[in-house]
């Protein structure tokens, strides 16, 4: 009686062969590998063509026919040049699409294909805090994943302020570029950058030292409370499931934070590259699926993603069976409400929720692209308008 031979992927039907032998098994493995490589190559060619389309005219070869040879040449030499967008921002549609597309290409080239990349910063004109933090977080994550291999380089920016930003945040050094300018711009030198993979309040110590009034006020402005709750939320919930880019790093529950005090205001941006608030709530692990569903349904049908963000700021107030759960985002909102000035914006995946304290105005918005994580930005006045 003939027996079917099973390779790891392909089963050879019995009537094609009389008895199993080593040659047949080897043949099935070769066939499987060829089919898999053809599928991979066609996907790579599709990406290379899109990469060709997004490249600047100066980088393209002379004739369009040779795009394939040029793109394959880049791939074989394992070296790509990525042009960074003009504006690093996530609050406007066009800027957001350009930045997220740039980050997507960066992840694919470095983490999936393990190829070298040179980031061209010559066209960058403006780096907004939220977009810069997202880029810094992605770059940090990629550099940790490739474990120090020399895969990412960059060119020096043309704009002096942009170069100061990259130098001040340590991004130039991370991409093996020597710092060459003095950080003197007013809108750069007061930035602080922190990152950790646990809820560590000592990371806030520098901020607390510089802005004492915000942290030691007898009325307890709760600035520290909001920050540590953001860290705790990130560490506990943000990385419970795989990120949608499919490249989750084991044990890495990292958060990144910017802070800047200028013109009598303190702005803080907090970022994680986890699964996002909407996916976290839908999993039901923290609040229960029913409680989440009921609350989200009460917020209407518009804005399928951002209403989950709004629900997350409300869940601590509503009566649920999970009384012992921390109030996370509600603590952050309390910071703004207690001071009665300033604003807070939460961007998570495709959604955006903005809260302005003065008139208690809430704005929900859904974008086309996902930032694949959560960005929380808030700004409050510094008592006395003190600057460090």
């Amino acid at each position, binding site marked *: 009686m003939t027996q079917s031979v099973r390779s790891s992927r392909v089963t050879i039907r019995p009537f094609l062969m009389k008895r199993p032998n080593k040659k047949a098994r080897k043949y099935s493995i070769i066939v499987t590998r060829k089919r898999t490589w053809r599928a991979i190559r066609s996907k790579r060619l599709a990406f290379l063509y899109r990469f060709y389309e997004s490249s600047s005219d100066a980088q393209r070869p002379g004739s369009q026919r040779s795009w394939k040879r040029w793109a394959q040449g880049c791939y074989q030499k394992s070296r790509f040049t990525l042009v960074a967008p003009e504006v690093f921002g996530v609050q406007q549609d066009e800027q957001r699409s350009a930045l997220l597309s740039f980050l997507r290409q960066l992840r694919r080239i470095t983490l999936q294909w393990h190829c070298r990349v040179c980031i061209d910063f010559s066209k960058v004109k403006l780096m907004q805090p939220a977009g810069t933090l997202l880029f810094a977080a992605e770059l940090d994550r990629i550099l940790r994943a490739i474990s120090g291999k020399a895969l990412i380089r960059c060119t020096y920016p043309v704009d002096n302020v942009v170069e100061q930003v990259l130098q001040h945040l340590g991004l130039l050094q991370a991409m093996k570029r020597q710092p060459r300018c003095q950080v003197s711009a007013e809108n750069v030198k007061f930035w602080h950058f922190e990152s950790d993979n*646990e*809820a560590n309040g000592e990371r806030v110590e520098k901020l607390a030292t510089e802005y004492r009034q915000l942290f030691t006020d007898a009325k307890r402005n709760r600035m520290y409370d909001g920050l*540590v709750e953001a860290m705790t939320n990130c560490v506990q919930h943000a990385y419970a499931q795989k990120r949608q880019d499919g490249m989750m790093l084991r044990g890495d529950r990292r958060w990144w934070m910017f802070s800047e005090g200028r013109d009598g205001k303190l702005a803080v941006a907090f970022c994680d590259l986890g699964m996002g608030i909407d996916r976290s709530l839908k999993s039901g692990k923290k609040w229960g699926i029913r409680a989440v569903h009921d609350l989200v349904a009460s917020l209407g049908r518009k804005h399928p993603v951002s209403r989950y963000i709004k629900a997350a700021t409300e869940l601590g107030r509503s009566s649920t069976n999970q009384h012992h759960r921390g109030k996370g985002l509600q603590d952050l909102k309390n910071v703004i409400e207690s001071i009665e000035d300033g604003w807070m914006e939460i961007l998570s995946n495709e959604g955006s929720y903005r809260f302005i304290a003065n008139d208690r105005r809430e704005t929900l918005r859904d974008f086309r692209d996902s930032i694949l994580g959560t960005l929380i930005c808030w700004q409050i006045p510094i008592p006395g308008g003190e600057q460090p």
Partner: protein
Amino acid sequence: MTTHKIISVAKDFSRFPAGRHRADGPYSGERFRDEKLVPALLNSTTVVVDLDGCLGYGSSFLEEAFGGLVRERALSFEELQSKLDIRSSDSSLRTEIWSYIRSAQTQSPRKRVK
């Protein structure tokens, strides 16, 4: 013989309490509860917890540290009312902590204090 124990969170634990579980960070609510609060409650007649001196307290830390006494360590609300005293220049902190303890009372305790 009555014994009186005073725990200052800032001096005896950390000026930067943050996080709920031990896995969250080095100065979590669970660690404070198990290493400081529970031994003091077992060995003393009254325990005073001084909250001043820290930068602040996240709700997760407070809930796990104090609400966890009832939920995880099976101490009753009445027992804590007689033994535990919370001192803070911010009265809203005391109110918040006792609300966590009261809420935890409605849930069944998981394990007894050893």
